[in-house]
C-alpha cells in the first residue's frame, strides 16, 4: 500500500453519520463533502470507508430492462416499474429477498406488498445467522447491548468470528480496546479469547487462541459444558484441544466478572449449524450460575437484525415468512430462500439491497437463471448479471435517511448527508410504487371473506 496524503479539499463536514456496513453501525463517522460527493470519511474502518467512498463506475443510475437480445437497456422509471410490477403480479410464488441494507421504512412498504400478493419475504439471515435464530428459538437468547460490554466485560470470547476482518471496529469501539466505566484500563482489564480453527487476525490480537479442529465446535462446547457441570472428561484430546486446556478455560470463564461470547458464521456454516449455537447458548446459560455471561451474534449487514426485528413485530416471525395463504407462515428449511430456490419453487424473484449472485451457492442461483429477477440496488454487481429489471435505489445513511438496528438491537436513525444522483430513487419510494402498480394489476389473493376468530387467540 502506498502513502496517501490526507484529503484537505472539501466544502464541509457532516458529523455523526452512521456507517452502513456491518452490524456495528458505528454512528460517529464524519463525511468530508465536496460538490455533493463524499470525498473522505473519518473514523470509519477500511470496510466502512470503502463502502461510503463507493465506486461510481459501477453505480446504477438509470432503470434498465433486459431486451430480447439479453442486453440491459436503459429505460424510464415508468417502463421499468411497470415491467417489474407485471412480473410480480403475474407470478404465483414470488420471493422478495434482501432488505438487510435498506431501512425499516422501506421494509414497511415491502411487507405491505408481500402480504398483498402472497409472497415470501426473506433476508440475508437465511444465509448467515438463520441457524442462530433457530438456536435462539430452541434455547433462548441472553444478550446485552454493546455499551454493557464496553463498561463491564472483563472477558471477551470471539467464536467462529474474525472480527478484525469482518467487524474491524468492534474490538476498538465496543468490546476490547475501549475504556469502560468499570474497565478503566481498556484492553488491559480484559481477557480476550478467540476460538477458530484458523489463526485469524482476531486470534493474533487475543490473549488466547483455541484452535479447535474443523467441525469440532460442537464437541468442544459440549466438553466445556460438561466441565461446568462438574463432570470429568475421559478423552485426553477433544476436538483437537487437550483436556487440561478445557479445564483451564472453563475455570477462567467461571471466574470472569462479566463475560461475553461473540459468535459468527464460523459456527453457523459448519456441519452442526444451529446445534453449535444451541450448545453455545446453553453454555452461556450454565455460566450464569457462576457469574454474569451474555452473548451476541456478530451480524454482518447493518440492518440484517433490523429486518428480523421488523418482521417479528409486523407478523410474529423473524425471516423466511410465507404469505401465500393470506397469513404468515414460517418453517425453517421450507419457507427460506435457499430451500425454495433449490426446490425450484419461485417463479419471480425480487432482490432488494442484497446480492444473491455473489452469495448464494450455485445450486440455488441456477434457478434464478430460469425466472424473472428484479433487482433494486445501488451498484452493478453479480446479481445484475442475472437481473431482468434493474431499479437503481439510493444509499441509506449517505443519500437517504432511515432506521437501522445494530447487532444488539439498538435502533439508530441514519441521517442523510448528501443528495442522491438525480436519476435514482429512494428504496422506499420504489417499493411503494411497485406495490401500487401491483395492486392495480391484480386483485388481492387469499383474502378471508370475513374475520374468523381463532379460538386460540381469544
Amino acid at each position, binding site marked *: 500500500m502506498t502513502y496517501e496524503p490526507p484529503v484537505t479539499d472539501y466544502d464541509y463536514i457532516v458529523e*455523526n453519520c*452512521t456507517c452502513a456496513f456491518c452490524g456495528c453501525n458505528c*454512528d*460517529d463517522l464524519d463525511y468530508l463533502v465536496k460538490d455533493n460527493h463524499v470525498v473522505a470519511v473519518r473514523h470509519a474502518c477500511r470496510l466502512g470507508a470503502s463502502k461510503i467512498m463507493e465506486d461510481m463506475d459501477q453505480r446504477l443510475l438509470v432503470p434498465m430492462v433486459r431486451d430480447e437480445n439479453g442486453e440491459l437497456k436503459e429505460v424510464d422509471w415508468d417502463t421499468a416499474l411497470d415491467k417489474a410490477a407485471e412480473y410480480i403480479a403475474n407470478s404465483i410464488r414470488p420471493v422478495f429477498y434482501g432488505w438487510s441494507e435498506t431501512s*425499516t421504512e422501506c421494509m414497511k412498504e415491502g411487507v405491505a406488498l408481500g*402480504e398483498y400478493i402472497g409472497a415470501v419475504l426473506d433476508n440475508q439471515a437465511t444465509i448467515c445467522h438463520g441457524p442462530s435464530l433457530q438456536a*435462539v*428459538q*430452541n*434455547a*433462548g*437468547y*441472553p*444478550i*446485552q447491548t*454493546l*455499551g*454493557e460490554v*464496553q*463498561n*463491564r466485560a472483563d472477558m471477551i470470547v470471539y467464536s467462529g468470528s474474525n472480527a478484525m476482518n469482518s467487524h474491524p471496529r468492534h474490538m476498538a*469501539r*465496543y468490546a476490547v480496546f475501549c*475504556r*469502560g*466505566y468499570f474497565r478503566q484500563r481498556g484492553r488491559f482489564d480484559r481477557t480476550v479469547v478467540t476460538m477458530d480453527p484458523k489463526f485469524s487476525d482476531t486470534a493474533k490480537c487475543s490473549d488466547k487462541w483455541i484452535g479447535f479442529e474443523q467441525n469440532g465446535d460442537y464437541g468442544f462446547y459440549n466438553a466445556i459444558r460438561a466441565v461446568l457441570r462438574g463432570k470429568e472428561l475421559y478423552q485426553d484430546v477433544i476436538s483437537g484441544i487437550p483436556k487440561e486446556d478445557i479445564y483451564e478455560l472453563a475455570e477462567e470463564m467461571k471466574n470472569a466478572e*462479566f463475560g461475553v461470547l461473540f459468535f459468527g458464521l464460523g459456527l453457523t456454516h459448519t456441519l452442526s449449524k444451529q446445534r453449535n449455537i444451541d450448545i453455545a447458548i446453553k453454555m452461556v446459560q450454565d455460566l*450464569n*450460575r457462576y457469574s*454474569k455471561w451474555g452473548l451476541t451474534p456478530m451480524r454482518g449487514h447493518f440492518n440484517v437484525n433490523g429486518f*428480523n*426485528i421488523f418482521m*417479528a*413485530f*409486523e407478523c*410474529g*416471525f*423473524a425471516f423466511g415468512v410465507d404469505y401465500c*395463504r*393470506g*397469513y*404468515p*407462515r*414460517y418453517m425453517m428449511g421450507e419457507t427460506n430462500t435457499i430451500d425454495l430456490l433449490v426446490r425450484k419453487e419461485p417463479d419471480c424473484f425480487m432482490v432488494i439491497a442484497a446480492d444473491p449472485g455473489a452469495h448464494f451457492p450455485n445450486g440455488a442461483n441456477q434457478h434464478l437463471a430460469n425466472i424473472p429477477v428484479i433487482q433494486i440496488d445501488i451498484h452493478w454487481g453479480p446479481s445484475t448479471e442475472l437481473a431482468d429489471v434493474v431499479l437503481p435505489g439510493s444509499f441509506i445513511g449517505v443519500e437517504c435517511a432511515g432506521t437501522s*438496528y445494530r447487532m444488539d*438491537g*439498538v435502533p*439508530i*436513525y441514519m441521517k442523510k448527508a448528501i443528495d442522491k444522483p438525480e436519476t435514482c430513487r429512494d428504496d422506499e419510494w420504489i417499493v411503494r410504487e411497485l406495490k401500487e402498480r401491483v395492486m392495480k394489476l391484480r386483485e*388481492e389473493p*387469499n*383474502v*378471508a*371473506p370475513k*374475520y*374468523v376468530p*381463532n379460538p*386460540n*387467540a*381469544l
Partner: protein
Amino acid sequence: MEYILKNGIVYDPANEINGEKMDVMFKDGLIVDNVSADAEVLDVTDKIVMPAGVDPHAHVAGPKLVVGRLYRPEDSRRGVTQKTKVLRSESGFSIPSCPATGYRYSRLGYGTVVEAAMPPLEAKHTHEEIATIPQLDIPAMPLFGNNWFVMEYAKDNNIEDIAAFVAAWLKISKGYGIKIVNPCGSEAWGWGMNVHGVNDKAPYFDVTSKEVIVALAKANEMLNLPHSIHIHPNDLGHPGNVPTTIETMDAVKGIKKGKGAAEVRDQVMHLTHLQFHSYLGNSWKDVTSGAEEVAKHFNKADNLTCDIGQVTFDETTTMTADAPMEYDLFKLSGLKWTNKDIECETAAGIIPCIYSKRSPVSTLQWAIGLELFLLIEDPWRVCLTTDHPNAGPFTRYPRIISWLMSNEKRQDMCDNEVHKWVHKRTLLPTLEREYDFYDIATITRAAPAKIYGFTDRGALTPGYRADIAVYDINPNDIDPSKQADEIEKGFNVADYTIKDGQILVKDKEIVKVKESQNIWVNVKGWEQNEQKVIDNIMPFFTQYYSVKWENYPVHDHYVSNPIRVDVDGK
C-alpha cells in the same frame, strides 16, 4: 359527523352514572350533550355502554416484545388468522404481532393502552412498534429505577437534578411518566446479582432501592406529572416478599402530591401487578397468600393505587425489566431463557411460562390476584390487568371480569378445577364479594384514567374524546353471578368500539382501521435545569454510551402523530 347512541344502559363511574338508560352523543370526535336532528342514530337498546377501556399496564411494544416474538414462533403460530379486506393477517397468542395487538384490544372495547416499560436507549424501537399497532392511543413509560444518573443523584439526595433529568428524558424518549422496575436490582443484575428488600444497595452505587424510590417520587411531584411514580417493587415473585412490598408502600408516606396536572389523581405511587408481590413464607414449599396483609395495609394508605396482574391459567410469555427474577424462573423451569441488558439504564428478561390449574403455585398466584381484587375495598384504587403478557394475555380480561362478578363461578373452580392449595393456603374460598357492572367500569375505565391523570378519556363527559364501547349484554336480563360464561362472551367482543368518534368495531366486526397515537408528557418550565443536567452528564455520556448523543433521542420521525400533554412543572 354527528352520532347518537340510543337507549343504551350507561355505566360511567366518573360521572356517577350507574346503569341508567340514556343516549350518548358525539360529534367530530368528541362527546357532546346534544346533537342536531341530522345525527346518525346507532340503536343500542338495552346494551351496556361504557367509556372505552383504559389499560394501565401492559407490555405491547418494544424490544422485549420483539425478542419474545422472535424466539417464540410457537406462540406466533397459535394465533394466526387470515387477512380480510379490512384487516391484515394476525399472529400470536401471548405476544401478538403489532396489528393483532391493536385489533384485539379494539374488539375488547379498549381505546388506550399504556406500554409499561420503555428503555430510553431503545425508545425509537418502542415508538416504531407503537406506530405499527393500529386502533389505540399508547403512552409509554420510560424506565428510571436503575438509571445510573438517577442512582447517582439519588445517592446525593439531589431531587432537583433528578426532576430536571426526568423532564429532559421524557422529552428525549417521548415518554409519559416514571416507571421503576426492581430499583437497584436490575443494576445488580449487571453482575449477575439482585437486591433483596428496599434497604439493599446496588453494587458500586452506594444507594438503596428505597432512596431511589423516594427521590423519584419527590421529583415526580416536583414536576407535577399527571401520573405518579409507577413501581414494580423489589423481590417480585419471591415467597416472603410481603415485607418488601409493605416497606415500598410506606416509603412514600408523607410525600405531598404536586399541583396542576397532578391534582387529577389521588395517589403518589402506583404499585403494579401487586399479585406478584403478595407472597408469604420462606420458600415455594411453605409459601402462602399474603393478600390479606397487603390489602389491609393498602386499604389504610390512601396515597396508593395498584393494578393486579391476574393469572389466567394460560401458556404465556413472561417479560420484565426485572431480569434477575427471570433468571430465577429459568432455574426453576429450565425453559428457554432470554436476557437483555441495556447499558447504564436497565435490563430485561423473558421466559415462557405455563400457568396450570393443576399446579399448586399457579393456583396460589391465581387465588392471590382474586383475593386482592376482593379485599381491596375501593374500586377506584385498583385496576384490572394481567400485566400482559406476564400473568396472561390481555384477551382474557373478559374471563377475569366473569370471575369477579360471580362467586358461584369462583367456588366452582376452587372445588372442582384448581389445585387444593386454594383451600389450604388462601382465603379465596371464603370471599363472597361480587363486582357489579359499575365496579367493572371503574376498574377498567374510570380508575385507570384517573390514576394516569387523563382529562380527555375514561368518562363520557361532554368535551372528552368520544372513546366508547358497547357490549351486547342486557344488564336487566342477566344474572352475572349465575351466568359467568355469558358475561365472558359478552365482554369478549364489543358490539361497538368507538375511538375519537370513529366507529372502529361495528356488530362485533372491525370495520375501520385507525392509526395509533402516542401520548407523551412535555414538562414546561424546567428547560434551563434540563440543559444544565444534560451539560453535566455529557462527558459521561460521550465516554460510556455506545451511541452518539445525536442518535439518542427519539426523532420526530418516529412520533409523527403524537398527543402532547403539556404540563406546567413549576
